């Protein structure tokens, strides 16, 4: 299907189903139940899942295929956001031109930064990209304030000179981003016997774009171009000896990957027309590295899983407070209950980054292939025990065609 192999088609279909049915999948608990706080099916969070999914897919194209570890990828995301917000301010509130421009801007910057950074490899490449990203961040914070609005962040105001469309709505409000009249923030809630599902326009736009981005990524993985990139990863020296110049290939994939980041930034601005310099900070670049590694670098579905995983836990884990813990462990005798809670306390709520850091370290140490490799190992172990186990078959779907 669509020129994909059998295995790839399965992965692709799984991603399509996951993306399109996310409002159901992420809301497994009835609204009134005590587990309702683990529901992640509200538009804002779902949008972030897919947007960071796109970001991580793009990062994985660079890191997973060529092994070049960029520590400054968030710069492209930030540039994309700024470009998109400027498009809203100057042209129209339609998201299409904004997203297109954000990709173009990010792509152009990627050409420049990539051209310089890719002259070196290994740790030097990481430092160079980091230096460029920090430069963009510092400049956005200080001198470029007329363009970026500094610390406050770039926002849409009531007196924007919009060429297509009015500066303000009829009742004096700030106009909303839309897709040919379909408002991004619009959503309908469907109540079905205790469950309520949110269907948001913005989410579905992001999801469709994510599916497209994923499809393009599969095609790149399987193309001769992708093979070339893998060759660069496994032995660049040998590639040179055979008379091939690796630089154009790495530059091409760096630009593609930067455009993915720009796309993610543009979408982020489309969902909430706001762009601030903190999106470009190196911790933001670190986050996408975490996502990709956690999910499984160099695999197709890994980055998407990693992005979803981190964003889910960031939002849900950080909501668990002592009250919730007390609710869970109420069945234990009092002394034991307090003891267990005292142990768990540093890891939840505000301390969730500690859990993330530990988890990340464990993954790097024991599972260099990330969650995907974990899934493969489990499925292999299950297959060995009972070959007809349906759980194993289901897990096998997640297996990347790597």
């Amino acid at each position, binding site marked *: 299907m669509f020129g994909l192999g059998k295995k790839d088609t399965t992965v692709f279909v799984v991603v399509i189903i996951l993306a399109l049915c996310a409002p159901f999948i992420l809301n497994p608990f009835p609204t009134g139940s005590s587990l309702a706080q683990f529901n992640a099916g509200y538009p804002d969070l779902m949008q972030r899942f897919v947007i960071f999914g796109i970001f991580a897919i793009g990062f994985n194209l660079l890191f997973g295929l060529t092994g070049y570890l960029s520590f400054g990828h968030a710069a492209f995301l930030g540039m994309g956001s700024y470009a998109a917000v400027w498009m809203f301010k100057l042209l129209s509130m339609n998201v299409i031109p904004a997203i297109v421009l954000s990709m173009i801007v990010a792509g152009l910057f990627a050409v420049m930064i990539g051209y310089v950074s890719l002259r070196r490899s*290994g740790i030097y490449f990481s430092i160079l990209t980091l230096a460029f990203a920090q430069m963009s961040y510092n400049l956005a914070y200080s001198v470029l304030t007329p363009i970026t609005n500094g610390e406050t962040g770039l926002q849409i105001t009531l007196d924007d000179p919009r060429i297509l469309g009015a500066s303000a709505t009829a009742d004096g409000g700030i106009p909303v981003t839309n897709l040919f009249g379909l408002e991004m923030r619009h959503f309908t809630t469907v109540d079905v016997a205790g469950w309520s599902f949110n269907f948001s326009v913005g989410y579905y736009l992001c999801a469709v774009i994510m599916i497209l981005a994923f499809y393009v990524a599969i095609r790149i993985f399987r193309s001769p171009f992708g093979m070339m990139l893998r060759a660069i990863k496994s032995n660049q020296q040998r590639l040179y000896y055979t008379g091939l110049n690796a630089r154009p290939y790495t530059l091409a994939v760096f630009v593609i990957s930067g455009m993915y980041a720009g796309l993610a930034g543009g979408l982020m601005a489309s969902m909430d027309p706001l762009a601030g310099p903190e999106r470009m900070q190196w911790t933001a670049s670190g986050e996408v590295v975490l996502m990709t590694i956690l999910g499984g670098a160099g695999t197709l579905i890994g980055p998407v899983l990693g992005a979803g995983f981190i964003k889910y836990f960031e939002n849900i884990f950080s909501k668990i407070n002592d009250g919730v813990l007390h609710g869970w462990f109420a069945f234990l005798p009092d002394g034991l209950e307090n003891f267990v809670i005292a142990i768990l306390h540093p890891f939840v709520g505000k301390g969730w980054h500690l859990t993330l850091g530990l988890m990340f370290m464990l993954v*790097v140490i024991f599972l260099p292939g990330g969650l995907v490799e974990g899934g493969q190992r489990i499925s292999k172990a299950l297959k060995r025990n009972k070959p007809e186990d349906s759980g194993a078959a289901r897990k096998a779907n997640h297996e990347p065609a790597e």
Partner: protein
Amino acid sequence: MDAIILQILNGLDKGSAYALIALGLTLIFGTLGVVNFAHGALFMIGAFCAVTLNRILTLSHQVVDESRKDFLGNPLKVDVPYVNDWFGEAAGATIIDWSVPLAILFSIPVMIAIGVIMERGLIKHFYRRPHADQILVTFGLAIVLQEIIKYFYGANPIPTPAPDVFRGSFDFGVLLGFDPNVIIYPYWRLVYFGFAALIVGAVFAFLQFTTFGMVVRAGMADRETVGLLGINIDRRFTIMFGLAAAVAGLAGVMYAPINSPNYHMGMDFLVLSFVVVVVGGMGSLPGAVLAGFVLGVLESFASMNEIKSILPGIDQIIIYLVAIIILLTRPRGLMGRKGVMED
């Protein structure tokens, strides 16, 4: 002229911090070949050693003071630190006042222990893995250390004052024949610079003039041969890791009065220190120190108003700009040896 001298002085204290962190990073890289992203966290832990010692020393108990009354006429309860009980009031106050310099003694064993545990427990397993994996695992470790500190000390900066003697500024200009109050420089920054110079000198002397240092240098040059000669080089490298951690920690301890310690100060310094290491030349100890001071001074020059008015924003990016230019024109950095991580 006075402005130039002032900027050089201003650059020295930041440059000292860069130089010390970069020195530790280079020690680790040169001996073990590991890129340690957790080094900034070690610097931060050093600063919190100062905070911790200050807290330990000010641990107090309440005593009813009959001579002072509150507004209702009841005797006032005052907190008396335990050190006052043990050493007398005057000596106790001095000890608390000098908590930051005392923290140097406290932090050395702590940092060496942390360094050795880190190397034996984690880094050891990453020698044979690619550099990317080392970066990633130490990056994760940095997050964990940072969050642990945040859990115990909170997210706000904790002011940690220097001893009273060093408060105030030193009028440097008078010494050189300028008008008074033109070049003034805080005493503590002078102390910091002197301290950094001392540490750098000590590390170099240790490597240059002791047998241990000689073996370590031999190991840096050719690990395998030294191992074949029957020397347990791994154990010495572990100790060097502890030493590098201690250098970062000491830089942090003394930096606490300049910049109130907070849990993410390490990350802020780490990025710059890496740039410093790369500019100085990966694996070159003198290069790291030189580049640290040069970049610190350059940064403070770039923040002069005269320069900012010509090139707005240059103060924000000068270090990165220099790094990019150096990396592209002189791949092995200022003083890097040929063949070390040159690709």
